[in-house]
């Protein structure tokens, strides 16, 4: 049993804290009004720091960290609400590493760890009840090439991705493709969202893709997608964990400074108890996330643990941020204060890779129900 970080994890987080403190302060606020929605300049810097390559082998420009290291780094990013396609690029790269062939690995992972290539999973199919006018899924063969059409939603940073991970139902069954975002049949539309984090609508119309762009065995997409979703859910939990730690910190600081009725509001029992509840909720997210990360890193089955973490994180994200807003009072709802950024981001992270109800349902299944 060890709840401490390793030497190298401490070093990684030390650097991360310093870097984020120096470079990323106020970044979330700045970039959400830009078209990119993130800072390409800082993206290069974190590539140089080895963050994008954190979990990849040296031969591909990585530094061979564990998935647990990645979780810890993402937690730090969450504290700073660091914007960008970091987690989704990392898990996309891991899919190529785990399931791609060697030429795919050679072609894409070094570009990814260098910060040159952003890969985004484009896996969420629209519910036609929400909007009927969509390009429906089609996959046919022509001259040995696949012709793919379809609509995918909420593709993270799709507008700056070089490649999409895309699933199509081909003659061989559900098959995963790594599609060049520059393909002329693709349209990508960033959507305005509560978190200002550029989820995209990606539309394929008759996009020609060759067999070489298939990841893994044709017809076997589902297992890889599940892995992507599991990793994604856990990294979101870590990001939420960081956010909530920061919200708690900000809130306690505010309460310990703010005076009303001749006393610090932090001396009020109701404020203290709300902060205690925020702390407990946050620690629950943290430990559940850490345990799931440890299991994933060890290669142990972790579906249940990941879903426990994400279900708690999703619900705690709203609970904790709402208390944060309330304790900040009028200040907390002002655009100029950071509190509201966390509140808005929390909604996006709550939803990403499945909300609380969704993951509790998975836990139930994992319990054998």
């Amino acid at each position, binding site marked *: 049993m060890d709840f401490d970080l390793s030497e190298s994890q401490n070093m990684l987080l030390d650097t991360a804290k310093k870097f984020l403190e120096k470079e990323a302060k106020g970044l979330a606020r700045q970039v959400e009004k830009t078209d990119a929605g993130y800072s390409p300049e800082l993206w290069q810097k974190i590539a140089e720091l080895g963050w994008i390559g954190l979990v990849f082998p040296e031969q591909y420009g990585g530094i061979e960290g564990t998935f647990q290291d990645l979780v810890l780094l993402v937690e730090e990013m969450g504290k700073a609400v660091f914007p960008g396609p970091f987690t989704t690029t990392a898990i996309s790269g891991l899919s190529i590493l785990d399931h791609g062939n060697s030429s795919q690995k050679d072609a894409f992972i070094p570009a990814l760890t260098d910060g040159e290539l952003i890969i985004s999973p484009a896996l969420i199919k629209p519910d036609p*009840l929400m909007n009927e006018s969509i390009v429906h899924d089609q996959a046919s063969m022509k001259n040995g090439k696949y012709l793919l059409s379809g609509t995918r939603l909420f593709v993270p940073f799709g507008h700056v991705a070089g490649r999409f991970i895309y699933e199509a139902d081909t003659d061989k069954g559900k098959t995963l493709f790594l599609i060049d975002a520059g393909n002329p049949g693709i349209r990508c539309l960033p959507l305005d*969202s*509560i978190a200002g984090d550029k989820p995209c609508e990606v539309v394929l119309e008759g996009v020609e893709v060759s067999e070489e762009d298939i990841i893994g065995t044709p017809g076997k997409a589902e297992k890889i997608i599940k892995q992507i979703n599991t990793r994604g859910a856990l990294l979101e939990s870590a990001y939420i964990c960081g956010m909530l730690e920061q919200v708690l910190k900000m809130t306690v600081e505010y309460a310990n400074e703010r005076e009303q009725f001749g006393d610090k509001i932090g001396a009020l029992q109701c404020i203290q108890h709300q902060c205690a509840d925020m702390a407990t909720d946050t620690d629950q997210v943290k430990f559940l996330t850490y345990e799931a990360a440890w299991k994933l890193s060890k290669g142990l089955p972790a579906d249940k643990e990941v879903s426990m973490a994400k279900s708690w994180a999703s619900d705690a994200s709203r609970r904790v941020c709402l208390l944060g807003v309330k304790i900040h009072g009028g200040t907390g*709802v002002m*655009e100029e204060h950071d509190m509201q950024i966390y509140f808005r981001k929390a909604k996006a992270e709550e939803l990403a890779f499945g909300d609380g109800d969704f993951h509790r349902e998975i836990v139930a299944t994992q319990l054998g129900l």
Partner: protein
Amino acid sequence: MDFSFSAEEEKFKQEVQELFISEEELSKAAKKEWNTGLGFGPNCWKILQKIGERGWLCPTWPKEYGGLGLSYMYRYIVVEQMHHFVDIYTTVGAGMAGPIILSHGTDEQKNKYLPPIARGEVEFVLGYTEPQAGSDLAALSIKAEDKGDYYLINGSKLFNTRAHYSQYHWLGARTAVIKPKYKGISLFIVDLKNTPGITISPIWSVGGTRTNEIFYDNVKIPKDSLVGEANRGFYYILEALDYERISTVAGLERDFKELVEYVKEKRKAGDPIIRQKLGGLAAEIESARLFALKVAWMLDNGRVPNYEAAMLKMKVAETEQNLVNTAMQIFGPYGQVQKGCRWAQFDGQFERFYRDSLENLITRGTSEIMRNIIAQRGLGMPRR
């Protein structure tokens, strides 16, 4: 016990509804304007005046000042219908400033301000909050010095939400440095359009609502700006709370109904979890509605709804949170996209509401302040 409106009240309600229905386009346009977060636009003014010209904006006021001399229940009915059709609850003039002018103003002030308020022609912006005086209103520090012929005002006010379209500032300022602090506060009416030295600076909320900071830099205001007696402002504010307490959940009921229709349409009506959430919300909204009715009824019967009003305020704000949160949960990932996006459900209305509703947890007293009131005034638990 009787939970229905009287025949006269019912008739009145029909009339009010008919106005909004006959002015459907205008109502919708006003609602849309209001929901930009920018406050009153031309359509809002227009509909307010249509309400006002019938005497409905201040139905409890005497006829000479533009009212109808009716009971609080009629005001409740108007507020309910306004909330339902245009989302505007009331005006600060009709709900907060006016009642104090009516009770404590000079005849001159009454004649000058009340009729245009009742007609919906002018609006007041509330000027109580300061950076160090939020829940603790008595701590306000903006200074109003009596200079013989005029008052000299220096200082600033935070969260003056309606400042950019109101004619008057309803200003709470310090006229005496004294302990307890609340004994040194006076109320003033400041003409925002014609007074030099005032700067209005916008602040934006997370919900996209514009509010304002107002700076007073050696601002001179006439002596007759003072409302009532000097240093009695805090008492007047507390007194006026009664009137302010008329509240409604009509907007929530409307949104809830739309949400239920949406769930049916999107074929999610069979989902037991959604059914539980909506079933629970229905009960919660209904209980909040009954709280609101009770407060109006108490006012009409000469009872002081101090803890009941606190319960109402808290319950409405929390029910609103449950509503927006439930809606967002039902939309799933589609909830996060905003107005104008083709994937936005209800054209992003709940997405905005999800942000904008936060304010209601805080303004007019946080839920924690309300719980203090319920415990101490309602249950007789000790005050410190």
